[in-house]
């Protein structure tokens, strides 16, 4: 089984591919980044950058490292220059990093979804068969226009979620279900019951996609009942698939880049 090394390559590749979508072919100065550099870059980022950009990389308006898009730095050379000089007129300061720090933080910014954990990845083609067959994922999820919309669309799930996160979801869907995705049950003022999946919520309103795939918005004070369920309707696949099948399924999910 390809384990850590493969996972790292896949993860790095995922980001390279993403940048490929964004910028021209010269988006990178290198074809590979050292896992050691990336891991070192994580510590540099947390010490120097996270205080403004946040651990999540999206706390400056218009900048989201998770997206893999760096508007002002299509190449590593530009990224180094930007970090070294700052951006005049903005809060982006100039940083005097040494060579190792600069190499590390650039490597990390280029590989935001980098995985440290060892992840078992199998064969994506076999995984697609399992996804559409034995695992019956298409009965709830949608991929590239196929399947219903009641569960989250997975067309680009391999871009937004690292492999370790996807694996945890396959094994423990209830424990890892993102709170915003939780199923909701509503009883309207006239007694009508509505079920669906939460898309957004604030103090006064909630937005859902209901079980008929309609986008609906409700004022909470107009509801007789509003219940957010914490049990995922998705089965725990560790009970249904063997280790190889899980690895294949995971490889397929990781391959879904939109």
């Amino acid at each position, binding site marked *: 089984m390809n384990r850590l090394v493969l996972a790292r390559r896949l993860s790095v590749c995922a980001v390279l591919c993403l940048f490929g979508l964004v910028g021209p072919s010269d988006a990178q100065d290198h074809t590979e980044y050292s896992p050691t550099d990336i891991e070192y870059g994580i510590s540099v980022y*947390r*010490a*120097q*950058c*996270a*205080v*403004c950009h*946040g*651990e*999540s990389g*999206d*706390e*400056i*308006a*218009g900048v989201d490292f998770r997206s893999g898009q760096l508007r002002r730095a299509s190449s590593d050379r530009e990224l180094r220059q930007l970090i070294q000089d*700052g*951006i*005049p*007129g*903005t*809060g982006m*300061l*100039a*940083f*005097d990093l040494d060579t190792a720090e600069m190499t590390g933080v650039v490597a990390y910014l280029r590989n935001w979804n980098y995985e440290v954990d060892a992840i078992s990845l199998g064969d994506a083609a076999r995984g697609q068969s399992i996804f559409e067959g034995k695992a019956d994922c298409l009965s709830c999820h949608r991929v590239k226009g196929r399947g219903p919309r009641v569960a989250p669309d997975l067309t680009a799930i391999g871009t937004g*979620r*690292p492999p370790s*996160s996807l694996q*945890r979801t396959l094994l423990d869907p209830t*424990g*890892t*279900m*993102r*709170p*915003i995705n*939780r199923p909701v049950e509503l009883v309207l003022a006239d007694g009508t019951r509505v079920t669906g999946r*939460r*898309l*957004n*919520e*604030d*103090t*006064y309103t909630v937005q859902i996609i209901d079980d008929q795939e309609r986008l609906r918005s409700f004022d909470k004070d107009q509801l007789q009942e509003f219940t*957010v369920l914490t049990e995922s309707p998705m089965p725990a696949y560790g009970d249904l698939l063997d280790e190889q099948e899980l690895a294949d399924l995971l490889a397929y999910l990781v391959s879904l880049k939109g």
Partner: protein
Amino acid sequence: MRGNAAAQRIVLAVVVSVMVAAGLSAQVPFERLREAAAEPHNWLTYSGTYFSQRYSELDQVTPENVDDLQLQWVYQNAVAGPWQSTPLVVDGVMYVTQRPNDIIALDARTGRVFWIYRYNPSPNHRACCGSNNRGVAVLGDRVFMATLDAHVVAIDATTGVELWDVTLADMDLAYSFTLAPLAIEGKVIVGTAGGDRGVRGFIAALDAETGAEVWRFHTIPGPGEPGHETWEPCPPDPVTYCDPEAWMHGGAAAWLTGSYDPELNLIYWGTGNPGPDFYREQRPGDNLYSDSVVALDADTGELRWYFQFTPADPYDYDAVQIPVLANIERNDTEFKVMLWANRNGFYYVLDRATGRFLTGLPFIDLNWAEGLDDSGRPVETPQPPGEPTFPGVQGGTNWYSPAYSPRTELFYIPAWENYGSVFVGEPQEYRPGESFIGGRPTTYEPVPDAPTPPGLTRGPINDWTEEAGQGAVIALDALSGAQRWKFEMTDVISSGILTTASNVLFTGARSGYFQALHAETGELLWKASLGGQIVNGPMTYEVDGRQYVAVISGHSLSAFALRGSE
């Protein structure tokens, strides 16, 4: 109290009439600032008055008619980043700042612009956490602003022309200003930011006429000064990295506006965390005067007393919150107090003449301390490595202003609940001007990989939901600290609070709602969805007999007034 206020208003009206007759209508002498509560049609200081209660005697908008509030005007800007400024209003003219360091003079009735003063801070400034500016001060015929590159400027309030520009500190060492200055008699007072980049904090008073520095108080005492011993020498054989010069770059910034008691002639100012933020082992001792309130003689800047909330802080629990001053009568005794909801999750009541600790108790669930001892010092309960500490790094509250209503005698806190961080401290050598935090906090994720509340900015979708922290307005009895009511919100809050004589409380939400609550009960009275996050303090004023309530949401400054009140 109402009688006194009415009498003050009459006296002030006479004073103002005389001034107008003398052709001095644009003047805001110290006496007007001192009696600002008596002219509630204006909003003359960052927090409304020197007591910083964010309370107004205006009462046109009431719980009964607040539903009739109607948008009157909007001023929009195209500047990126959270807009954290609180406007001032002086006799119908509004002064508000926008990023990075612009001052805009507006007609407070229509929102139309008289002039814009643009100060271009050096692109090499090293202000942490965005190009924030929270507002201006007025005194005489001048407007004062402190800048991101550590300057202070004075502007002609009528023409917008710059009168002086002085440099107070070295921006290359990350000194910067993000606060609204405090103007008192003849002086303008500012405090530095940069506590996460290794500054040595200070509060400074400038001559309002010339800009010359009158005094400077270092929030970290130097060798030979009282308190310096709390930056203890490193042991001969330290088991971990210990910085023998920790006090020289130990933070204790003073990045929010202080308060002032003219009778005692004391200025009160909160100070920030010691640095590096998360690794206290390299700066042994209590690290005075970090995470403290200091009471300074307004004439000399000499320290009269201090109270430290979080000694040797490893959690970034800045104590820069606005010191709220109040005189409260109970059982025929008048208490001259300072009210303080701290980022560390405790609510404190201090005697503001002496600094004596009177009361302290948590206003949220927390686990970093099990309580306060008789002197107000926390009894710490550090959490095991990898376990969450509550409150998290953003705190139980933060820089957004609380409010106190002398009518309800309640203290109102914009609070974060059920929000924690896993702190990791790491030794870090100081490098001038660079981030100096000594580790990292990671927001506690009850659900693995799920989003957590963003620290500064919010998108249109709340994908962190109720799981990792919620916002609330918490109302406490000001003297006892007992909770009277709580208004819960789905998202966390970064808005200040305003209360009025008619018991209407205004506050905002990150989700963009502008909300009116009943100040006595917390009942929701009215709301408007303004779209952008509200990360500043709502304020109120009156023009031509009409009360306005102004708030900034996203990139829009909006003013509301009652339908039909024109």
